[in-house]
């Protein structure tokens, strides 16, 4: 599965808060797009990685840039499938490795000869996997001439006659492949953009200083990295994005819009509440709460380092958030957070309720029909849970995820579903959105406080959220835990963090941030607050997430609809971890 653009895993975390210029226009040929879009799964299955299918210009031979296969929409279904299989096989077999493609640049005749040999080799090498109906594509004689891309290239460079590749083999566009690689490289080396720089710039931050596993930072030539975090992010960066008109924030460029004055005011709720309403940066100091921060390098706390402000979320003009159904969360959550009560006089149970049994016996002897409910059972009955949902609304959540909705959109749906279901079940529940702009401006917006009712206002506030800024996770977690302790008023308390796991802010590098977030979670647990971290639709690597969330219960889900299967065990695990701590230190 060697693909040129797959960078090697192990380079820490990368975060992209900008957007690449390419915004694909999709109005034309929507039907065609749908038809081809359906082939995406087939393409991804054969290539062994995420691969889109898009229409090529009419009459154009099929080609790929490593992220998408472009097919002529006018040809027959069979031809499309064949062309797709060839291109995907080339990617899967490593035929479009950087080293090879580089040598094909500006040598279209050579590329054709190479394709003629290598295409057959790639198909033959994947023979066990390909549909049998396409077996006729392979020319075994040609395939036998080569056993690797390098050998195919050597054959293509040789003088032997090689028949032209069949039409369905399409073409190798070395320039397009290389261009996308170069762009990836350029983006990867662009350092973090500071606020105030032109916003067309791409904002990338590479956490290379914390390369824990010691892997070499070899972005393009190390084979075998079928989608490391960097590779995947680069892939995402290069994919033509199609974000407009999907209801969410129009692209991650929302992150840049907070810079000056009212231009971005409608996007970033945090600034609409400032007294002046126009000056960004440190928010009014008067009512902030300060929290310490863990300095992993110095192994000490920085006292009163972060200032957290609670800012009213914007709600006047916002559309109410259209809450979807509960994603089937009600059933798993209904059983949670309840104290075990020993219930007398049950029809079944673990033990005999002696009083009831004697009574029943007396009644039977006295000739009245006895009551059969003579067992003791431990039932969860009592609702005894307060939950605070922390919603990450930093700029990075504005990125589109695999399912085309932004991470923000999906997280918001989950937040809404969780809040509503827990509220309906009778738990105390609050929802706070957070983002930050440096340590003195960590902002938490109470979408729903514990004592608020779940009404249209809450939904409007939720609807008004838009991703912006960064995420100083540790401070947000500390504040959330403090609010839970002050206002939760139950013995079981749970903090649910919905985040893409990219802890980053000014002076809050990924490694430092991850350590601080871990520390904050551990502090919360030691004070009896259970912690649960959910990544919804984010492409964060499991490793990166584990670094941030540590031993707290966490899960990454591809979409909100997957939550109902894991929410029960996760909530239980989170509550249990807090319970152990609570008992351990009375």
């Amino acid at each position, binding site marked *: 599965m060697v693909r040129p653009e797959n960078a090697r895993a192990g380079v820490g975390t990368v975060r992209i808060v900008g957007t690449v210029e390419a915004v694909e226009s999709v109005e034309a040929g929507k039907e065609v797009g749908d038809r081809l879009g359906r082939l995406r799964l087939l393409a991804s*299955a054969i290539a062994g990685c995420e691969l889109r299918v898009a229409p090529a210009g009419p009459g154009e031979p099929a080609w790929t840039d490593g992220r998408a296969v472009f097919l002529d929409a006018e040809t027959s279904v069979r031809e499309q499938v064949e062309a797709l299989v060839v291109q995907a096989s080339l990617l899967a077999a490593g035929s479009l490795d950087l080293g090879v493609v580089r040598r094909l640049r500006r040598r279209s005749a050579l590329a054709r000869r190479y394709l003629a040999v290598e295409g057959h080799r790639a198909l033959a090498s994947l023979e*066990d996997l390909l549909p*049998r109906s396409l077996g006729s594509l392979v020319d075994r004689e040609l395939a036998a001439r080569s056993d690797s891309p390098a050998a195919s290239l050597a054959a293509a460079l040789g003088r032997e006659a090689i028949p032209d590749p069949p039409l369905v083999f399409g073409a190798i566009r070395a320039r397009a492949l290389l261009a996308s690689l170069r762009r990836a490289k350029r983006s990867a080396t662009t350092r973090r953009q500071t606020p105030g720089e032109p916003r067309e710039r791409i904002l990338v931050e590479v956490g290379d200083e914390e390369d824990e596993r010691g892997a070499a930072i070899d972005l393009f030539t190390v084979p075998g990295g079928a989608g490391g975090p960097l590779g995947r992010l680069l892939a995402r960066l290069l994919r033509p994005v199609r974000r407009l008109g999907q209801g969410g924030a129009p692209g991650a460029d929302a992150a840049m819009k907070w810079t000056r004055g009212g231009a971005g005011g409608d996007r970033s709720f945090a600034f609409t509440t400032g007294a002046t309403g126009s000056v960004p940066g440190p928010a009014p100091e008067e009512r902030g709460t300060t929290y310490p921060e863990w300095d992993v390098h110095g192994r000490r706390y920085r006292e009163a380092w972060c200032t957290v402000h609670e800012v009213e979320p914007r709600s006047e003009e916002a559309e109410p958030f259209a809450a979807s159904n509960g994603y089937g969360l009600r059933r798993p959550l209904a059983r949670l957070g309840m104290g075990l009560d020993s219930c007398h006089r049950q029809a079944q149970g673990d033990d005999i309720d002696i009083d009831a049994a004697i009574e029943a016996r007396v009644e039977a002897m006295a000739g009245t029909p006895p009551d059969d409910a003579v067992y003791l059972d431990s039932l969860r009955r009592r609702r005894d849970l307060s939950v605070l949902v922390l919603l990450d609304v930093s700029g990075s959540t504005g990125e589109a995820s695999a399912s085309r909705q932004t991470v923000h959109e999906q997280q918001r749906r989950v937040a809404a579903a969780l809040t509503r279901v827990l509220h309906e079940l009778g738990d105390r529940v609050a929802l706070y959105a957070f983002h930050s702009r440096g340590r003195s401006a960590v902002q938490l917006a109470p979408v729903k406080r514990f004592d608020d009712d779940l009404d249209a206002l809450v939904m409007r506030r939720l609807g008004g959220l838009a991703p912006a800024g960064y995420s100083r996770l540790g401070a947000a977690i500390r504040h959330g835990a403090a609010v839970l302790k002050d206002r939760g008023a139950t013995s079981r308390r749970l903090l649910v963090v919905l985040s893409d796991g990219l802890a980053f802010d000014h002076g809050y590098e990924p490694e430092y941030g991850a350590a601080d977030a871990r520390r904050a979670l551990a502090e919360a647990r030691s004070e009896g607050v259970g912690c649960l971290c959910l990544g919804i639709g984010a492409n964060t690597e499991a490793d990166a997430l584990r670094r941030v969330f540590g031993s707290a219960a966490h899960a990454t889900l591809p979409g909100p609809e997957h939550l109902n299967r894991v929410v029960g*065990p996760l909530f239980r695990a989170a509550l249990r971890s807090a319970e152990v701590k609570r008992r351990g230190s009375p």
Partner: protein
Amino acid sequence: MNRRGDVAGAPGASRPYYVPVGSEENVFKAAFRKGLSVVLKGPTGCGKTRFVEAMAHDLGRPLITVACHDDLTTADLVGRFLLRGGETEWVDGPLTRAVRDGAICYLDEVVEARQDTTVVLHPLADHRRQLPIERLGITLDAAPGFCLVVSYNPGYQSILKDLKDSTRQRMVAIEFGFPPAAVEEEIVAREAGIERGQAAELVRLGQAIRRLETGGLREVASTRVLIAAGQLIAEGLDPREAARAAITGPLSDDAATTRGLVEMIDVYLADAEK
């Protein structure tokens, strides 16, 4: 409610069909002879339960299976007092029965059970091989031939931790994956009662789906799902129809993913129709 376990593996019946992929049979039998407990890890539908059935048959032990769920209490496993007329009567739970009879006790999807429940397994799973029954005030020594087998599906990483380390470390682990293509073909052909060639196409489709890295899929296509598709084909259904019913539906509810899968089915099972 106390009859949760079912006894299978009666001697004399033919051996449940199981094709070994690696050394799992030898490992299991060695563990059985030494009285060690076994944990079977693997995705759903890859043959864990069938493996235990085959082993119980080979070893000539009865098999008691308990499907664990999140309200499974210790009493459900060990047993409880019931009232019969004026008397109390103790009724053994499936675990106690297995301990007394020297049966193989198979706890399916053990992570689902409440954690306080799994603690009862500890003295049974280690060298003591004892089951204390608090309510009766006795401690049962496991009869020869008793073997504790648990299974779980390490799907979501964070939930994997749910099986306590103290429980895990008392067990011998056997990992299961999907069998290699040739073996899987044989299994599908035989279990579903279809031709080898037809089975091969289903297996190819299954393997392609497994390469998707669960892009929007809940789980990948398991051997069980492929067999179900094969069985529908054996009943005379059109292969594509059968695959849609047995593979697409169970794997995804998402409309876009479903369309993608249907497309894959149409490509992979193209010629079977003619």
